[in-house]
């Protein structure tokens, strides 16, 4: 909003016109306009794990009016990451590469082909906020205690790990390598404010135990939390 501090008006000045110059100089502190700048809707978040959604194009290039080309949206697709272990290899200790059904290879930032499918799962987004730039948003994974098969057999989630990289990537990954916990909430990355963050995850199954044969599955939910 705009407001004015207490000030002398023109009528006040006129009676003392002869000394107008001196009076004006003396009243400098009250002859100023104050405009109050207020950040409007300064916060926005976007988290994409697997496929995401942008309509109208990528975020960049920025249009002439300062707005991005594309607009982020909500994609409810749940992508799978899976592996098949041949019976002869079960429990031999050789990690098994996992693949994804996600088709997300390009960064919505600029369309650059950042991840390779089906080997890698895209994870990225941004946290837009005004104010101090030190606080980061946290991205966590809510992990079930175990993967289960239809018969109730279980497989610890900690058997699944991931590495992190991306095409032409440099610097530390915002979503680094890790291993799932066996039930609970774990931090899998942070997003510095006002920065586009992205990584490509390559999952693997440790394959160092011999579970009962079966189709084991579980769902991990990723959550972004702003400070």
């Amino acid at each position: 909003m705009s407001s004015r501090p207490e000030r002398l008006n023109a009528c006040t000045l006129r009676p003392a016109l002869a000394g107008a110059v001196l009076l004006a100089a003396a009243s400098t502190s009250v002859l100023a306009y104050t405009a109050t700048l207020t950040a409007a809707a300064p916060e926005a978040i976007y988290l994409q794990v697997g496929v995401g959604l942008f309509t109208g194009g990528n975020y960049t290039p920025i249009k002439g009016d300062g707005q991005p080309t594309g607009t982020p949206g909500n994609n409810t697709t749940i992508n799978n990451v899976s592996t098949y272990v041949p019976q002869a290899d079960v429990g031999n200790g050789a990690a098994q590469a996992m693949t994804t059904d996600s088709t997300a290879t390009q960064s919505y930032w600029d369309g650059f082909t950042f991840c390779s499918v089906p080997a890698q799962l895209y994870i990225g987004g941004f946290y837009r906020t005004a104010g101090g730039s030190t606080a980061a948003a946290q991205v966590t994974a809510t992990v079930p205690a175990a993967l289960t098969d239809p018969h109730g057999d279980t497989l610890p989630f900690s058997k699944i790990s991931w590495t992190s990289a991306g095409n032409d990537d440099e610097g530390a990954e915002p979503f680094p390598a890790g291993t799932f916990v066996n039930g609970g909430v774990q931090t899998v990355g942070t997003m510095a404010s006002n920065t586009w963050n992205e990584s490509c995850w390559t999952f693997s199954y440790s394959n160092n135990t011999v579970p009962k044969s079966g189709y084991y599955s579980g769902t991990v939910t990723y959550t972004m939390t702003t400070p």
Partner: protein
Amino acid sequence: MNTVHLRFAFFLPLALTIIWASAAQAKSITIDDSASQAIEPSVSMHWKTAAPSRSGGGNPMVGTMTIRVRINLTPWLRHSGRIYLSLPAQAPGPIGLSWITQGRLLPGQLQSGSRVLVYAGRITTPFMEDTLTFQFTVDGSLMRRAVPVTYHFEMDED
């Protein structure tokens, strides 16, 4: 009168002249603009670009406001002078200001801590009016809370 005394008498008037000229140049007087009116009641700051950068640097927010400027030039009527728009250095940090006008005053831009000429010439009317559209630019990291920004017009008499 000896030689030493003559030199003293010669240099004294010269020194006084220099000091007077310097003081005259530095005389800036804030102009009464109490009749000015803001057309919009507030300045909403938006991200200059909705997309954050990959590096995290440079995230300006911008906001515009329109002011019907009416400055009281009665004290300088029928004199020549130069009018500046001044944006003092102030919290929370560097502030950019640019503006366009309807033609009575000059458009321009500046950074806080400086001033820019908006009029030079003879003052022929008691009041000078124009409509200015201001655009403020502040780094988003400084917009922790509402930011009051103060500016004023000032006169340098010729």
